[in-house]
């Protein structure tokens, strides 16, 4: 356990974040985009846990925040999927390219 240094964990979480960001920007499928967002959230969670564990082992703040984020992510996923379903009802598609009503 203590064999893994903090920097390694941070590198993992950074990779995870940018993979999520990249996926969010490039995938056209809304479900895939939602998943990318979850990736980014989870990279943040990893950061919280890691900093809490390595820097302030006596406190629980990071853990509490992580639990908050997981709960919010669940709620957010529900809202996002509801939006996606509504969009699908209107446009018969869940492709982000088709949802361009903002333009006109």
């Amino acid at each position, binding site marked *: 356990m203590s064999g893994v240094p903090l920097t390694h964990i941070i590198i993992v979480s950074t990779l995870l974040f940018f993979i999520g960001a990249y996926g*969010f*920007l490039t995938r*056209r499928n809304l479900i895939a*985009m939602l998943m990318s967002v979850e990736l980014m959230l989870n990279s943040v969670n990893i950061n919280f846990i890691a900093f809490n564990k390595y820097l302030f082992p006596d406190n629980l703040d990071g853990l509490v925040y992580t639990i908050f984020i997981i709960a919010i992510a669940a709620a957010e996923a529900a809202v996002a999927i509801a939006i996606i379903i509504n969009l699908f009802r209107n446009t018969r598609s869940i492709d*982000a*390219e088709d949802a*361009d009503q*903002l*333009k*006109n």
Partner: protein
Amino acid sequence: MNLLLIPLLPFATFLLLGIFGRKYLSPVAGIIGTTSLLVSALLSLQTAYSYFIQHTGEVYTSIVAWKMTWLPFSQDVSIDIGFMLDPISVMMLVVVTVVSLMVHLYSLGYMKGDERFATYYAFLSLFTFSMLGLVVSVNIFQIYMFWELVGVSSFLLIGYYFDKPSAVAASKKAFIVTRFADLGFLIGILILSYHAHTLDFPTLIQRLTASDSTYLTSAIGSSFLGLSALTWGLVLVFMGGAGKSAMFPLHIWLPDAMEGPTPVSALIHAATMVVAGVFLVARLFPIYAISCPGALELVMWTGAISAMFAAIIACTQTDIKRVLAYSTMSQIGYMMFALGVAGYGGENGLGFTASMFHLFTHAFFKALLFLGAGAVIHMIHSNEMKDMGGLRKSMPITHITFLIACLAIAGIPPFAGFFSKEEILSAAWNANKTIYYIALLTAGITAFYMFRLYYNIFWSKDSSKHETPNDAKGHHASDHDGHGEGTWTMKIPLLILSIGAITAGFIPFGNFVSSDGHHLHLPFEITNAIMPIAVALAGILMATALYKTENDKSDKIAAAVSGLYKSAYHKFYIDEVYLFVTKKILFNLVGRPAAWIDKNIVDGAVNGVASLVMWKANLIKSIQSGKVQDYALYFYIGVFGLAVLAIYLVK
């Protein structure tokens, strides 16, 4: 307060007929207009009676009956609206309302059945209101406003038959030419009021005539191009008057203005509006006569040249209304130079009285001539002399009244024109011999062309012959029988005006109107009268010889002096000169460059700004793609940028 009703009644009629006339009041529009004007005319006659007859004392003073400050600029400069009574304005009140009443009455028959009958009466009322407002002005700016209003009503009435391109062109021409002249008038007003520090007539006259006045010294003292400011002001004011009164060389609009209905020509372009220029000079006469004789000399020469010039053209025209138009111009020329030869006060003021006298008598016989011509046109449906001839049997009343008017304008005693013309000639004799001979010659030409007109309409051919062209035109023949001489409403004004044309000359005019308000005994010497009468008779005899029966003598004479005849027939090519100056010179040298600048530089600048914005907009338009992920990318970039900023700045 009765006084105010004189102009306000026609104004109320104008509003009523203008707003509701066409829809609701069309059948009774004429009756309404005529009745309200009848009341106006009676009130003016009553005003004249109480002003002139019930007057006590030696001098007629000017009375400001009502005055309202409308636009005060400073302590002593303000634009007032008011009602001033003095001898000339009271005389003009009578002339305007009486002639206008006659024209209203006459139009009942003449314009009957016209589609825009109510509009016609609305315009007539507007004109009458404006003219009355003009003559009673207390303020030089008030006169300017009403001046423009009569210009507008004249424009509306000339262009009354707006489906006729020539009428539209004529109304535009009249409007533009008089407006050009009014520009001078406005500048003149500004110059005079700048130096006199007032717009009020009595104050203006007092300040610019009193020899010890500092205002006068300043007006004479400052000069521009070698003439004093006072001269410039008066000359420019006269320019406005010359435009309205159709003086050479601003006369070109008047003959074309005959495109309007004939009663309108009688009212506006013969008896009232065109004498507004004379009235204006008469209103400011003390300033002209006392302070600036140079400007008065200009008035004199302009008048004399116009009188002669128009009389010569009138001899060659074949459209009867155009003959009358040129004769009007010629007679107004008479009034102008009569003012020009006059001096201020006492015996010197003879020309002033004579001018106003001629204005008064001219209004009657010229309105009569036009209304008579209108009756002829109403019957023949043509303005051309060649379509007429031998009408004396079929239109007896028109014939007699027309003859009376011709005798009056020719200056044969005892008709009205004789007396006024005689006064003008004696005034000219006393002042300037050259002018006298021009006037005398013009009087002869006047008699000649009036009788040329008279014989061509009423004699010349046999009545049987003149039927032929009418029958050939088919429907005209039946119209002809139906119309006859016109309705009684058309004959009564002719009769009333012919009574005026006979008797107006016997009014002792000098007792009422003079340059300084004192009574002036008009000298009448039989020896002075011999020459004018002889010249007039010679003119009449010549016309009788040439035109009484149909012959080719006149054509031979015209052929003998073909150069002169042709140029007079073409009105001495003044219109062409104007066209040349405007089209060839002004358009090419001023108009085209201005248009080029407008199109390329002004419009170019506006278009350039627009296309620059367009180009920029196109550049940044693609950012707003409407795609969520693009916006997310911008958001990331933004956050990244902020993060970098935060790291480098906060650290």
